[in-house]
């Protein structure tokens, strides 16, 4: 009933927008990273033709990322922070999602609203909240000195790795709990009953039925929070600000905003994006599959 060109016509403005302001800009980063630097003005000179690319800056940054290089520590620290924050998030998030999906009963909708709420409170507002709490005379220090856990206030905001990891967990865990909840909520209760009827203990039912069936949610949620954590620079900036807790995102931020060497910044960005490609591809595949399932229902 509709003309054939109508649907591509509908999609056209959006596709054009994303080509001009998403795909081309990303290509610009690659062109700058594979470009040269003006020797007089020290400005980035992008090279648009891939045949003329100059791999010098990419190789330079890769060299610095290798063991012994100046970025090696930062890269290692970034991976360690993300890994610890992810593990903690799963450790806290899984029981929460499990409880809400399986045992919350009448409280289910209220709890759902309460765990969705942080998603709609600005990330910066939530970080500000912790800056207030962790100040030297803040509630956390006062509580800990009052209960004699600490003999004197601790400088939580002066470059502590534990503070940065706590902030990362606090910032990103809501994005993990929702996919976990969705996966656990979808599990058909009759599978669990079948396992119990066949003699499985509660623990082995969990291990052999619930856990494998929630794998998609675990992986999806883990990727969903890992990607932004790898690109994060503002969290360590806000709750620490010290070089000894800086992450790879801080390096990109530094070379663009303070260091005045956008070519190096662009090279780090390209390498980071390449490193994250596998995770991005996996996540896009899950979205794609989910939307296909909806379509066939």
């Amino acid at each position, binding site marked *: 009933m509709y003309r054939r060109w109508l649907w591509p016509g509908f*999609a056209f403005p959006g596709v054009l927008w994303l080509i001009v302001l998403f795909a081309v800009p990303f290509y610009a980063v690659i062109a700058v990273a594979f470009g040269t630097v003006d020797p007089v003005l020290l400005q*980035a000179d992008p090279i648009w033709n891939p045949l003329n690319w100059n791999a010098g800056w990419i190789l330079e940054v890769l060299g610095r990322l290798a063991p012994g290089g100046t970025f090696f520590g930062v890269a290692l620290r970034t991976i360690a922070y993300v890994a610890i924050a992810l593990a903690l998030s799963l450790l*806290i998030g899984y029981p929460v999602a499990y409880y809400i999906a399986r045992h919350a009963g009448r409280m289910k909708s209220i709890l759902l609203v309460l765990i969705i709420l942080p998603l709609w409170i600005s990330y*910066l507002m939530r970080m500000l909240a912790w800056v207030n709490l962790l100040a030297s005379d803040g509630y956390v220090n006062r509580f800990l000195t009052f209960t004699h856990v600490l003999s004197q206030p601790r400088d939580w905001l002066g470059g502590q790795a534990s503070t940065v990891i706590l902030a990362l967990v606090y910032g990103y865990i809501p994005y993990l709990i929702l996919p976990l909840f969705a996966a656990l909520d979808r599990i058909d209760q009759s599978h669990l009953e079948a396992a119990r009827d066949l003699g499985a203990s509660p623990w082995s039912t969990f291990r052999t039925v619930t856990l494998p069936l929630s794998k998609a949610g675990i992986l999806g949620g883990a990727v969903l929070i890992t990607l932004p954590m790898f690109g994060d620079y503002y969290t360590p*900036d806000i709750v620490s600000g010290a070089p000894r807790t800086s992450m790879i995102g801080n390096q990109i931020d530094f070379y663009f905003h303070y260091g005045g060497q956008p070519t190096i910044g662009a090279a780090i960005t390209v390498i980071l994006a390449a490193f994250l490609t596998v995770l991005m591809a996996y996540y896009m595949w899950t979205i794609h599959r989910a939307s296909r399932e909806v379509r066939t229902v």
Partner: protein
Amino acid sequence: MTAVAEARRGELSALYRVRGWLRNPWARPRFLVLVTWSYVLWSLVPVLIAVQFSFNATRSRTEWAGFSARWYWGDPVDSVWHDPTLRHAAIQSLKLAGADVLIATPIGVLLAIGLARWTGWGSRPSNFLMLFPLVTPEIVMGVSLLLIFTQVFTFIGTGTIAQILGHVTFSISYVVVIVRGRLFSIGRQYEEAAADLGASPTVALTRVLLPLLTPAIVASAAVVFAISIDDFVISQWLSSGGATDTVPIRIYSATRAAPLPSTNAIATVMMLFTLLSLVLAFLAWRVFTRGERRARAGQTKDLAVFEL
């Protein structure tokens, strides 16, 4: 008689529960209850304390000295109302969010319909392209947009226009995902029925499809408003200095210097804007889809939109 028996049984089961609790306080669900409610408190109480200190009577954000609206409008220099940097930041945030909603929503709605029905050459790569902004770390997008506006589209440069273009770029995909879900759930039968009854394609689109999509359009507009207000990275990378600072950028620079309770106050105001827009959208969704909901299945679907 039965009522009494019921009440008696209720009392008994409560008694058993308490006894079970005393015998083994670590039985599984109890442990889960404890973890869940501790998590909920941990995730929300810090924010509530930050809101509380926005009403503090002194300059301290750590020592409570009594309630006052000083940091909202009372203080002649540093309150949200009188400090020009804070006021400008709030206006800039609202300006970006408003423009983002007005541009991203129509483009996203058209893209959603187009991608859902276009099957010819080019539809797959377009689908693929649409998903990319959802998974790209914001810093990568920030770097890309900064370079394109400083190296190629130099006639735009950085500043408000660039910020709006950037916000629209990351918002379109959210609109597509929300609207597409709705498109799939309503199917094509209503439009086909309209066509059978003699409606032209234009009439079928505007009188049948558009009203059916309205709840998703309203919801996506609210989500776009909220993600634009909350955005920090793109706004910061495309900012051209103090005049284009948004509220998240002010919070960021304030926490690194010496923040006053007025920072908490402006953060609270923006939080209320976001939550209000989402509550309104949720209510609108409920009103528009009245009569469609089939008990619980519909309810979780409603919520799915807000889980994004």
